[in-house]
């Protein structure tokens, strides 16, 4: 584990990329797969930035959920 309690960056990229490759690898060229992997690296980088921020328990998703009531 990394010191910030997040999985190692490279290992996380490899695991998530493996998921994407398993799903779509048969329709992609090696060059396209390399490009997709770069995309996964960017996603992991963004996710790790989000995870570094501490929020309160009451910080709910925005916009908040609004229940629906039809007519009448």
């Amino acid at each position, binding site marked *: 584990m990394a010191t910030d309690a997040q999985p190692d960056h490279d290992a996380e990229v490899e695991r998530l990329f493996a998921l994407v490759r398993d799903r779509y690898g048969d329709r992609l060229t090696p060059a396209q797969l390399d490009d997709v992997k770069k995309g996964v690296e960017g*996603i992991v980088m*963004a996710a790790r930035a*989000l*995870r570094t921020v501490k929020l309160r328990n009451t910080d709910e*998703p*925005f916009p908040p959920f609004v229940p629906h009531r039809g007519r009448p």
Partner: protein
Amino acid sequence: MSESPVFLPIRRLAELVRARAVSPIALAETFLDRLEKIGPQYNAVVTVTRERAMAQAKRAEQEIAAGRSRGPLHGIPYGAKDLLATSGGIPTTWGAAPLREQRFDDDATVIRKLEEAGAVLCAKLAMVELAGGMGYRQPHASFTGPGINPWRLDAWSGGSSSGSGSAVSAGLIPFAIGSETWGSILSPAGYCGISGLRPSYGRVSRHGAMALCWTLDKLGPLALTAEDCGLVLEAIAGADPDDPSTSNREWRYDAREVTGRRFAFGVIKGVTVGCEEAVGANFERSLETLRSIGSVEEVELPDLPWEAVTRTILQVEAASAFEDFIAAGTIAQLTAHEDHHSAYARDAILAKDYMKALRLRGVMAREVDRVLSRFDALVGPGRANVSPGLDQEFRSAIRGSAPDLMGAIGNGAGLPAICVPNGFGDRGLPTSLQFMGRVYEENTVLAAARAWQSLTDWHLQHPPGSLATRPS
């Protein structure tokens, strides 16, 4: 009429139409001819809607002759980004080759509202395929060809509202409707040297518009001046039962004189970091001008991953909106080679991280509103650079390869912003300035931009040769 209607602002055109100094039919014919003859030079047009335009123009002419006025857009030609549904067999392609025959039975709410205001739909305008939602990174990303900048034919028009930007800039149409999820109005406005207004989220109904990201998509005007943007926004704003995101707050354009009004401007610390040198220099000069009409104060925002928040939300919503399209592999038929596969990576976004982005979005909305409550507007460069070349891969905040703090916050928090020209940079291409305000404060950012345009003449400059009726 001795005055050419090309490059006249809407207010002036409306005066001429109302006084019957110019006929809506003649006006429509002028702009239809320009769209047909010059539009292809910029890859600006998907469909010229001549039949519908002439029917609307004839009706406008009859109504005006009978003394009935529908307001300042009555008889005024316009173009709509080709993600807005139009009835009558007119294709709505979303810029995507696999959808080039797509048609809808009904008009989008915005198209309907503009018809009610008497505006004349002359063209469906070119756009980046699927509004750029599949991760394009160079201009060749539409089946109509790359959007070409009227200021330089080897430069990009910006996107994804590419044709909306180039058509207004080249005088092919007095105003256009574009859409913005992150940058798609401000980018073509900035690169093409015109004015583009991104309204508050929920100000304008998206019913009948292609959905890219339900919580980020906005529709707004691109025009020659800030005032024109205000006139158009008044016609298209308002609640719509068909779009539950729309606000019930009524909105009227405040056209009161801005001369003598003082403004409080904020500048986010480091907002020019990563900008091209000329962009930074023009921004500094702009601040000097703005100091003549108000205060300018540097502000700091909390150090949070603003761009990651908006980017994560955008990528997840776009992946969901086009889930079937992506899963079926239809993206392989798109024009940009990178759009054939880039979206697959988004399966790697974890639900927990997406939820964190949504929770941080609340922090973002509260923090920026707290900062903005002290100001009329935050100002910054409209774009960090001038338009890239047509064959150049560009940097993008959406992909995380370029800074766009104001774009991330403004779109993430649903804030209004207007982009206006403020000079020229590398290769003689326009640079721009943006004013971003509190949510629902479109009139405040419009007033600031109008004050800016009353002090400068960048908005009066047009691409060389653009008054010609045929490509030179």
